[in-house]
């Protein structure tokens, strides 16, 4: 079964090719079948491979598959090779299974859209690129997938390209992530020039052998890779693209936030964890960036009106948790949260999509309300997703993963109370902002401008929602804290690829207290959301009358003004420079050198040697033509004269020569 590994990225790419080339000739039904099956089969293969891998692990818990050598130039020979270990297995399972569910959902959700085939083609390419990214054996091949998801995010965010705003959002996402990608490319160059290979496993061994802990090169390389991860995963300071990326269709958001794009940075850091653990300052930076991002995004999420933007900020915030975990060395906790987050974030987006669709493209949560009875499926699934996001204790997957991160942020070698406190504060924010949405959208009285279209969503929408809801509930039970049975199936498995977190502050009392505090944060924030947004909304309205608070709210709403700041710092000066400089010296030089000189030369050189040669040639030809045509006059006597003259000439030559 393991030998089928190469099919996992290949099938979605094949689906992309088929749809891209012949999509316009196919009917909706066949497009849906091709688009979905080219992701369903890899998901099936991934599950079978996963079962195989666990039942009969290959030697060293690693399976490699080399397809062919990509390039071979003077000692640089990256291959098209796939690498399967515990980490990439988890990733590939998450990517393919979640993508399959989102594809299935899209077949119904996107029906009637002009770009039905285009949509599935891009989505397949997205999944294929992501599979390449997580299965790549060397960093160059990984970078191919990395850029592939970047391209697909651009294509899909700008999917409804007729609206210029969508095109702007797509460009913004592309350019902002490109800043990170540039850093990452530099990091790859650095690694290759110093260590001579980009194959991940040999590279990590050489890193360990040649670079001492804390060496400058290690720090630089790790920092550059972190730049790439920050861009792709929308972390501070490159988080600005993700909220705008909501311009794409809702399933795209679900795919991008749950299974593909934004998890790439987390995966990259986990994949190169050896390098990062040799660069303690960078690792601290990872943790701090994560903590900072999760708080910033949490506050922003609290002030949004657009239901999808709440979820977008929520993603930024949750990826922040993963970075926090990566930063303190809790590798498997980060991947665990990545997995559970994929479940509940996909669920939240997809059920939000149902709400938006049934309210005729209404995004504003203040114009919803009271949808609990009218949209029961969306309500229950969104509620489960929200509970999981808010880490409702015991029953939800999000609880187990977030709890693990919080505990390790405190207890592990890289952790400290400040990071824990940030995570804990973020947990309160999470519960507040997501249950704010729940209470505003599904409870209270209906404020919708148009009555909801309560047509029952079909099976293709309902089944993914139910499956994801089930995963959001039970997905965490494979890893439980000590006071709940201390089950560590997930981290035991992932520890074949990632080292365990080094616990330095081990104390049963501490842990219990921290668990209780985390539970309190989760329950308390939900209760607070209930009080603030459902029970006593007047209190909040009263607070908003205070100008300072209203201004803060607006500040949060616009993402802490990062857009303004970047616009002010980079975009405007650049545009101004380009405008001011449109007649600068260089332009003038070009004008003089090229346009003026050429025109002068052209004028002067009307009758040069070459012109003479050509016109001389033309005249010679004309003369010869005349001469020859004169001999063909048809005048018999002239012919005779010519013959006589010729004969005389020949006789003279015969006599005198």
């Amino acid at each position, binding site marked *: 079964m393991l030998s089928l590994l190469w099919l996992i990225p290949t099938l979605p790419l094949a689906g992309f090719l088929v749809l891209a080339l012949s999509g316009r000739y196919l009917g909706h039904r066949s497009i849906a079948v091709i688009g979905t099956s080219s992701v369903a089969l890899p998901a099936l293969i991934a599950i079978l491979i996963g079962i195989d891998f666990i039942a009969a692990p290959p030697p060293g818990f690693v399976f490699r598959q080399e397809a062919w050598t990509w390039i071979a130039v003077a000692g640089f020979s990256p291959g098209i090779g796939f690498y399967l270990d515990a980490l990439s297995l988890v990733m590939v399972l998450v990517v393919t299974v979640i993508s399959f569910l989102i594809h299935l959902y899209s077949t119904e959700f996107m029906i009637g859209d002009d770009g039905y085939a285009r949509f599935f083609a891009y989505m397949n390419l997205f999944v294929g690129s992501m599979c390449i990214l997580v299965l790549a054996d060397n960093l160059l091949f990984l970078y191919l997938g990395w850029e592939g998801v970047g391209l697909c995010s651009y294509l899909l965010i700008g999917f409804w390209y007729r609206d210029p705003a969508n095109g702007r959002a797509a460009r913004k996402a592309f350019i902002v992530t490109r800043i990170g990608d540039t850093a990452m490319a530099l990091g790859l160059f650095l690694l290759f020039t110093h260590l001579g290979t980009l194959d991940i496993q040999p590279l990590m061994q050489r890193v360990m052998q040649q670079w001492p802990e804390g060496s400058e090169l290690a720090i630089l390389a790790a920092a550059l890779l972190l730049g790439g991860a920050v861009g792709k995963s929308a972390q501070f300071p490159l988080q600005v693209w993700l909220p705008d990326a909501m311009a794409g269709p809702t399933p795209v958001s679900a795919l991008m936030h749950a299974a593909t794009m934004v998890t790439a940075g987390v995966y990259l850091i986990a994949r190169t964890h050896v390098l990062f653990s040799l660069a303690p300052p960078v690792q601290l930076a990872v943790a701090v960036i994560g903590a900072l991002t999760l708080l910033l995004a949490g506050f922003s999420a609290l002030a949004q009106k657009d239901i999808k933007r709440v979820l977008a900020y929520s993603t930024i915030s949750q990826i922040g948790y993963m970075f926090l975990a990566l930063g303190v060395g809790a590798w498997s906790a980060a991947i665990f949260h990545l997995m559970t987050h994929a479940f509940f974030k996909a669920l939240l987006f997809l059920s939000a999509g149902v709400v938006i669709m049934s309210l005729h493209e209404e995004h504003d949560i203040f114009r919803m309300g009271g949808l609990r009875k009218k949209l029961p499926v969306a309500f229950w699934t969104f509620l489960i997703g929200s509970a999981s996001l808010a880490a409702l204790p015991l029953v939800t997957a999000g609880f187990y993963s977030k709890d693990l991160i919080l505990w390790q942020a405190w207890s592990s070698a890289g952790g400290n109370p400040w990071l824990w406190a940030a995570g804990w504060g973020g947990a309160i924010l999470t519960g507040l902002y997501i249950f704010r949405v729940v209470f505003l959208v599904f409870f209270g009285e209906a404020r919708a401008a148009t009555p909801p279209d309560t047509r029952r969503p079909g099976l293709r929408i309902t089944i993914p929602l139910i499956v994801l809801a089930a995963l959001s509930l039970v997905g965490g039970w494979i890893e439980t804290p000590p006071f709940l049975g201390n089950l560590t199936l997930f981290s035991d498995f992932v520890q074949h690829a990632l080292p365990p977190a080094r616990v330095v502050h081990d104390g049963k009392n501490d842990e219990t207290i921290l668990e209780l505090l985390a539970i309190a944060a989760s329950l308390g924030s939900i209760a607070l959301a209930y009080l603030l947004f459902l029970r006593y909304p007047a209190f909040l309205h009263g607070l908003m009358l205070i100008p300072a608070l209203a201004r803060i709210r607006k500040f949060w709403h616009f993402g802490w003004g990062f857009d303004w700041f970047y616009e002010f710092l980079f975009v405007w000066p650049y545009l101004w420079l380009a405008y001011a400089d449109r007649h600068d010296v260089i332009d003038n030089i070009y004008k003089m050198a090229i346009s003026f000189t050429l025109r002068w030369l052209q004028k002067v050189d009307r009758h040069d040697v070459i012109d003479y040669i050509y016109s001389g040639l033309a005249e010679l030809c004309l003369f010869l033509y005349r001469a020859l045509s004169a001999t063909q*006059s*048809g*005048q*018999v*006597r002239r012919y*005779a*004269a010519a013959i*006589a003259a010729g004969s005389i000439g020949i006789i003279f030559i015969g006599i005198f020569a």
Partner: protein
Amino acid sequence: MTMRTAEAIAAIPMHHGLMLAAILFALGVIGVLVRRNLIFILMSIEIMLNAAGLAFVVAGARWEQADGQVMLIFILAVAAVEVSVGLALLLLLHRRFQTLDADAVSKMRG
């Protein structure tokens, strides 16, 4: 050919015969070039052929070889063919253009 005539011919210096042939040929050429009437042109060509034949005969007599006379027979045959074809063409031309002016029928059309 009797002995006497052969002796009489041999008595004539060769360059006299050749001169005569040359003059006749030149007259023929001039006739071809200056006359416009096709019949005269044909006749001039005959004169040129005869001049050439005379030259052959003179040369044959000088070297006492029969070749010159053989060539004359050839030339006479060629002249006969030329005249018959030429006259046939003349008839056609005259029927078509009502003229025998060589310049008037100078337009060659397929």
